[in-house]
């Protein structure tokens, strides 16, 4: 079966410094794949390369057979990659519901003139968007907060909202950047269940960056370890986590 995401020799240099070098990975559909490594290894840079925030200087990214290397952010999202961010990036002044509705923007359309003149098309599409957005929020138990200003949500809920918004774009591949950051063990446990739920309910493929080893070993099928911008080890989660080189990279000599 052809991989959903095939990355070949991906690399980027910032002024002579190779932040990411010869990054390869193949992720199968419906996999829960983990990207781990010490701080500063280049994990978020890989995410930024995959989502078009940075343009790679080397290599290729192929999503579901489609070569998406070098495309802009918006284009890559339309092709099917959505993400969350290390530092939560919500639309702070918009309501919780509106945050998700923005995610629905490209798949529920009407023209600006429709909006200004309040045509029937406007009414119908808005109604569908409201329904769909509430459905998504319900999955994350956020529907009760739908009229809250996004910045007023508690931290853990903000993270979930970011995921809900990303899912609203109907992606093929979901990238989660340190989703458990700042969470206590209970919240992390809840998050693990949420991620599994997302994979099952939305037929999703998920690539996540994480430092929390309990979460990584709990839900990831396979891992890639990044160190100094290069792939150190790849394979089944348990094999990788017990590999002496990997342990050395994290704990030092």
């Amino acid at each position: 079966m052809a991989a959903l995401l095939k990355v070949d020799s991906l690399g980027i240099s910032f002024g002579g410094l190779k932040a990411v070098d010869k990054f390869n990975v193949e992720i199968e559909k419906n996999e829960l794949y983990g990207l781990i490594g010490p701080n500063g290894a280049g994990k978020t840079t890989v995410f930024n390369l995959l989502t078009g925030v940075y343009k790679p200087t080397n290599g290729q990214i192929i999503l579901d057979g489609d070569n998406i290397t070098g495309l802009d952010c918006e284009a890559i999202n339309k092709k099917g990659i959505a993400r969350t961010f290390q530092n939560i990036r919500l639309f702070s002044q918009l309501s919780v519901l509106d945050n998700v509705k923005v995610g629905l923007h490209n798949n529920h359309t009407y023209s600006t003139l429709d909006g200004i003149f309040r045509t029937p098309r406007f009414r119908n599409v808005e109604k569908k968007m409201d329904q769909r957005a509430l459905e998504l929020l319900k999955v994350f138990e956020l529907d009760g907060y739908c009229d809250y200003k996004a910045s007023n949500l508690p931290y853990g809920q903000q993270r979930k909202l970011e995921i809900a918004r990303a899912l609203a774009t109907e992606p093929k591949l979901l990238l989660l950047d340190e989703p458990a950051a700042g969470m206590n063990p209970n919240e992390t446990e809840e998050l693990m269940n949420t991620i599994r739920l997302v994979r099952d309910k939305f037929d999703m493929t998920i690539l996540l960056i994480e430092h929390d080893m309990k979460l990584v070993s709990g839900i990831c099928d396979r891992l890639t370890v990044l160190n100094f911008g290069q792939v150190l080890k790849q394979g089944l989660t348990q094999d990788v986590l017990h590999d002496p080189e990997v342990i050395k990279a994290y704990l030092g000599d």
Partner: protein
Amino acid sequence: MMSFITYLLNGLSLGSVYAIIALGYTMVYGIAKMLNFAHGDILMVGGYTAFIALNTIGLPIPVAVLVSMAVCTLLGITIEKVAYKPLRQANSLSVLITAIGVSYLLQNLAQLIFTANPKSFSSFVPLKPVKLAGGQLTISGETIVTIVTCTIIVTGLVTFINKTKAGQAMLAVSEDKGAATLMGVDVNGTISMTFAIGSALAAIGGILLCSAYPTLTPTTGAMPGIKAFVAAVLGGIGSIPGAFIGGIILGVLENLAKAYISSKLSDAIVFSVLIIVLLVKPTGILGKKIMEKV
């Protein structure tokens, strides 16, 4: 050829004034992170104070200059403490509007006290015009003094920033206010000093400007203020060498445009150059690109 050199020199002189004022803008922006819209009007206050000191009170020129600088320095520090400091945590738009209010305040106070009638400003430069190239080229004393003053100020400022503790403190605050506080830097004092220096410079700029273009009204500072702002942005806002370069380029361009193209359109041409430069270099000539962390 001679006329070109004359225009060029006058442009350098005008540019020097813009540079001196732009320095104040850029320093305040870099350190207090605000656009002090009232800066141009401090120039005007400097002009009027000098005028009174010289003509009404009859003080000798150097003393009048010092008095003007002192008044402006005091004014700058007071404005900062009363109107800007309380808004340091607020969003930048609020401070901008407050600065606009201060600008209106200064202009209208001046109008109340001095009326809108232009005052004839007697030059502060006692130098006679210099004749060169067998009498073909005449350089006014004001031009020479302005250019020299500007050069001295810029060199002095750069030395101050790099070599003194207070200057380094200013640099630190402009990079990271929070970290500077934690390192024991007196942030309030540093910001006050920034406004003080900027205002004193505005006073000098005002005196030099009025010496060369001798009419003084309550709105004299407004357009030069805007142009100095443009100069600061042109050179890269927050950069001291940038303010210098921006000011000089602006002054020269404006004068050459007035001379060779059209005096009606000189402003349009100058502003157009700014736009073209920013299109090519969005952060200004010497501006730093700030990378946003994703």
